[in-house]
């Protein structure tokens, strides 16, 4: 058994004040000067430890407060109160919600799995990944204790083409090219987020984190060209037709590349396989209404991997007034198409967009992805607030450009480390010891529509939002 994959995490404190969920309002006027003030009795020492944050020049009490309301309810003159914190509500957008951004921040700071008491507090279900529950088994193989345990749960993932069988000539020598696939120890590739701030130092630090994790940093080829010091074995440059024509950087110098789909790419792939047999070329297809046919054609043509990339909310572009489709549904369609063709194991599916939490990785894999490209979430771990006007802002509220390299590396390791541990938790609950076996295993998940139909259908009839 290979050595257990381990990600070293250690605290990398926030550089900025993270707005708290609710504000603390402290009317000092009317204070009775009690001998022992309720503020001194705060279990979390909020009032002792509050200070003025030197960057935002704001009070840190809101960030430290854990909303137990003890001071609010005990102050004899009712001088302390709490209210909605507009600063918190304004974080992110409707997909990258304040609660997602704060949990990512916590994970990047501590490297720990978010744990809390008092049960689940969120909505019953929701759109996208929130309409999926993962399964568990009451009785599973012995000796499985999740992340604390003795058993090895593998998150190793293959990328690239593997022959379905080996062929030998009469002399017993292997015939054919054999396997050119590569593997990464976890089903995630770090990817530079589109539309958010990038600087050479940040990219270098992200590449260092990718190296430490044993995975790749996916980045535009022209950036890779500008940064020759990056290790080509850990970089996944993305080429479009123009940069391919330019010839620099040379695709064959890398282990893994991505090429934007173009007419005639089949011939290019065949030629590339000949000149660079050890490089896996992923084709990024346009997510239009023809993507399934394109995926099928590329599979027939022997493409080793295809990348299905959606926007940062996990949506494909809506065409002709139609509805945008969510990544989970796109993956299920793609996976099923490949199954119907009988060729699922010949091709690797990469997917990107809307992967905001560890559970999204597990759920996207269940829906059919092999590997996820994680982008915006990484930046959120660096305290990025996913401002919609990132490009036009003069000052980044997280001052990403000044982030020290070692801090960035540790934050990313912490975030991915926490995600990896959470993956082990959900896989452990399913009694699943191999992430490769989880791919497309929709039987290990429960979907909102199915549960409603099977459990409630016989009782309540037809849902209003379902067509007759």
């Amino acid at each position: 058994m290979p050595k257990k994959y381990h990600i070293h995490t250690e605290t990398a404190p926030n550089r900025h004040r993270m707005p708290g969920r609710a504000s603390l309002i402290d009317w000092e006027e009317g204070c009775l000067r009690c001998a022992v003030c309720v503020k001194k009795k705060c279990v979390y020492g909020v009032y002792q430890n509050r200070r003025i944050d030197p960057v935002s020049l704001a009070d840190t009490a809101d960030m430290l407060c854990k909303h137990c309301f003890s001071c609010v309810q005990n102050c004899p003159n009712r001088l302390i109160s709490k209210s909605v914190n507009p600063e918190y509500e304004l974080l992110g957008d409707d997909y990258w919600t304040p609660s997602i951004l704060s949990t990512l921040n916590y994970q990047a700071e501590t490297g720990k799995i978010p744990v809390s008491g008092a049960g689940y507090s969120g909505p019953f279900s929701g759109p996208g990944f929130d309409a999926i529950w993962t399964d568990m088994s009451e009785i599973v193989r012995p000796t499985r204790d999740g992340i604390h345990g003795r058993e090895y749960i593998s998150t190793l993932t293959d990328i690239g083409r593997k022959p379905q069988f080996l062929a030998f000539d009469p002399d017993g020598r292997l015939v054919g090219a054999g396997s050119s696939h590569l593997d990464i120890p976890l089903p995630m590739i770090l990817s530079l987020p589109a539309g958010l701030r990038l600087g050479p130092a940040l990219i270098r630090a992200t590449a260092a984190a990718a190296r430490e994790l044993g995975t790749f940093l996916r980045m535009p080829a022209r950036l890779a060209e500008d940064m020759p010091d990056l290790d080509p074995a850990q970089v996944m440059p993305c080429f479009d037709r123009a940069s391919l024509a330019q010839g620099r950087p040379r695709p064959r110098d890398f282990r893994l590349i991505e090429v934007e789909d173009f007419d005639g790419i089949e011939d290019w792939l065949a030629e590339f396989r000949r000149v660079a047999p050890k490089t896996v070329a992923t084709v990024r297809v346009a997510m239009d209404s023809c993507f399934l046919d394109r995926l099928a054609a590329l599979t027939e043509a022997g493409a080793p991997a295809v990348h299905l990339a959606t926007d940062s909310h996990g949506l494909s572009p809506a065409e002709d007034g139609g509805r945008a489709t969510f990544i989970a549904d796109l993956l299920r369609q793609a996976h099923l198409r490949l199954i119907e063709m009988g060729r699922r194991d010949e091709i690797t599916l990469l997917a990107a967009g809307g992967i905001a939490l560890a559970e999204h990785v597990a759920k996207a894999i269940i829906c059919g992805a092999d590997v996820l490209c994680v982008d915006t979430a990484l930046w959120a771990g660096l305290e990025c607030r996913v401002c919609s006007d990132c490009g036009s802002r003069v000052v980044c509220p997280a001052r990403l450009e000044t982030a020290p390299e070692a801090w960035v590396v540790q934050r990313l390791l912490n975030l991915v480390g926490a995600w990896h541990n959470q993956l082990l938790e959900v896989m452990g609950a399913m009694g699943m010891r191999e992430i490769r076996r989880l791919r497309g295993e929709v039987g290990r998940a429960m979907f909102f529509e199915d549960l409603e139909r099977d459990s409630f259908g016989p009782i309540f009839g037809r849902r209003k939002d379902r067509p007759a």
Partner: protein
Amino acid sequence: MTPTAKHTPSRYKNVIGKYRVRRSSACQNCRTCITACPHGVFTDSGGKVLLPLDHLCFGPACAAGEGSCVHRCPNQALTVTLNPMYEVLGDRRWNADLVMSTWYMAETGRVPENGLEYRIGGSGGGFDRMEIVLPDGPVDPQALKEVSTRILLNRRKDDRPKLSIGLPVYGGGMSFGSVNLATMISRVRALTAFDSLLCTGEGGFPDALVPHRDHVITQVATGLFGVREETIQYVPVVEFKYAQGAKPGLGGHLLGDKVTPAVARIREAVVGTSLFSPFPFHSVYSVEDHLKHLDWIKQVNPRALLAVKVSTPTDVDMVAVGSYYAGAHIIHLDGSYGGTGAAPDIAKKNIAMPIEYAIPKVHRFLVQEGVRDEVTLIASGGLRTAHDIAKAIALGADGVVTGTADLVALECLRCHNCESGRGCPRGIATTDPELRLQLDEDWGTQRLINLYSCWRDQLAEILVRLGLTSISELVGRTDCLRHLDYEPSGGGRQR
């Protein structure tokens, strides 16, 4: 005899209400407001009007009326507004209305009449989108008294006691260590008052529970903490916990900080070391092993009923039938949205199905297998209100188990910090020597009696309105339910 509700006000100086009553310095202590308000918002002591009791206020609509406190105050010193804290209290499942109305019920034993929603939360699905279809009209007070909320726990044809409980509710396991003794004692005394039971959880059987042992369930879970021959022999019901809804498929974990000398002694562990309860039972790899486990308990305690607690995977119906054939009297399904102690957020939200789906699935399968009448089906995991209880029963459960609601009655406000630092800042889920002093067991007992009594009254009214005489007649009556997201014609006929 039915226990009676008694006014049991909050432990805190300020109770958070939906509305905020403000009194300016123009107040001359004339005490007009005390006579003006019929709801008891204003009180005095030593001739001085005290701070208004916000939580009793009926809000701006009442304040706008002629004769209200605001209008009658000769000095215009009073204003009534929506409390800004109303927007920050609680969460989607337990929204501010539900937290405050549960506090109100625990204080008074009555449902709130000031417009607080006390039947559903704000999760937008499951129970929160279901309604019990109740005919209007007057309710016969005599029928309310005569209706039965008692359920039978042993429906098997065996020679074990035909144990029943007076409410279709028993107390879910919260271990000593995760909560303190005052919490456990309050719960067991209140449940005893209703002739019901409290499960120990997996933290052993504290000596203080021994006098109550006829109303205690000993839990046998994977860590076997504090499980001894006598703790199994003490009790009328022994519960096998395979998994729990908040963290299905994961083990339990008591952080080192909470392993105080008392906790360590009872769990036979070392002070300050984190205690892991593994998943799964390392001695159970099959349903045959499960049978062996149940037989073992049956040998040790010949009068005990056996409960099997499982969470809700996709094959929960098969699991339930398997447990029945292994000899369980009670099958306890713990849905994924419940839980009280610490659990990874990823597990609470994502693993296993909500209880709303599991109940009809299991009920139907047990009916099809022809064994439904020989087993008691208990549901838990996110049951918050009397209406949740009635809906769970109408979907096919015989009764329910609660946990969080009990804690809310003790003034938990779901800050979710049960495990951080010294534990619960409100003295409920902590064994910290200082923090736990905030909770008094006599106060806690009465708060819970008030809540259960209010639940009982609500259940009685639901039954009488439906023309039923016993809660057991409601089991599987899905025709009494309506789901707001379904076409209106779709009223079910399942029995």
